[in-house]
């Protein structure tokens, strides 16, 4: 489920509607291939909507210079925190919709934690290795 790196890497712009629609389309195309109904579409749209508020909270700022912003400019632990919050929310939604019962709560939590660790690791490595540094 590393495809959510899309949400981390899409440039922060004023026009957010396009980003939301594209995220939804990405999610639904994942669903097409993995036969999971609309679970991924739901989850990725959710984190796409809450990406900016979470980014603000991580940076402890109330305003952002959109044109200048780049994920690589942040310090390492801020990037990890940002990625982790979004990943855990996304995975939690996916697994709870997939299991769809409170009786399986423990299973949902263990699955979320274990899958999140690997997703965070891989997407962090991907971001640090394969994005251009602009300095």
């Amino acid at each position: 489920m590393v495809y959510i790196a899309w949400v981390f890497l899409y440039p922060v712009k004023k026009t957010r509607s396009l980003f939301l629609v594209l995220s939804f389309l990405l999610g639904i195309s994942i669903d097409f291939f993995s036969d999971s109904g609309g679970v991924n579409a739901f989850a990725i749209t959710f984190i796409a909507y809450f990406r900016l508020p979470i980014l603000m909270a991580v940076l402890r700022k109330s305003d952002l210079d959109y044109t200048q912003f780049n994920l690589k400019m942040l310090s390492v632990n801020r990037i990890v925190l940002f990625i982790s919050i979004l990943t855990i929310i996304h995975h939690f939604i996916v697994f709870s919709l997939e299991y769809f019962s409170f009786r399986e709560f423990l299973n949902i939590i263990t699955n979320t934690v274990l899958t999140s660790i690997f997703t965070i690791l891989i997407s962090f490595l991907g971001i640090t290795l394969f994005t251009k540094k602009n300095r």
Partner: protein
Amino acid sequence: MRQIIYFIKKFRYFLLFIVLETLAFIVIVHDYSFQQSKFVNSANSITGGVYNKVNAISAFFYLKKDNQLLSEENVRLKNLLEEKENKFVLDSFTVIDSSQYFQKYNYSVAKIINNNFTKRNNFLTINKGARHGLAPDLGVINSKGIIGVIKNVSSNYATVLSLLNTNSKINVRLKNSNHFGTLVWDGKDYNISQIIDIPRQALVKEGDTIITGGKSAIFPEGISVGVVKDFKYEHNKYQIINILLFNDMSAISEVQIVKNLHKDEQITLEQRVVNE
């Protein structure tokens, strides 16, 4: 009116979010009701086509194993044939009356082009569809045992509700007695399934073979499923019976589709009993 337009303008981002989430939720809810033809699945031509291409390459690497499986099945079938010939010799007055001959099951081959086994609700995609005579609710087996039931068909592809799906329920029985139960999966280990609803007087031992029960009008009777791994007998009933599947669900490619030619007849007859 202006107020409404202002409202929509102000909250358009949030409204878009709500609309998209509702759309996704509708798809999820549709997906949960079995039998309904669902919209988002891998049986359409685009996803099916992509899976087909990918599979054409990866299939090459499994040729050796597939050949081995085929020869194993050949040996088994040859042995069956040999038994039959011996029988004919023993009672040599057997008359084969072709007017009483009837065919109950029809088999056709297909290939798995997409396989899931790590998720909670797993589906397979196969490279045959409505054009090849497939329809929903046909059984899918391979030489080692059962695999699942067809859920959706498009013209060239079909999705299969795997054994490894929490919605899958298949009638099975013990090989050495006629006590039957239902095969389900708890979503944990892809090698281990569970049986529920086995009556308490049934004698279950570790290592007992489980076969299909033939009450379901989907699978023929006697297709192997697995062996009993362990079980828990408490409060005068079987709590858990774990089954070690014969099939390694992570490595299957060639499958056979079973079509029950008497299915409609059986179902209408049973329906009539219920309605009376």
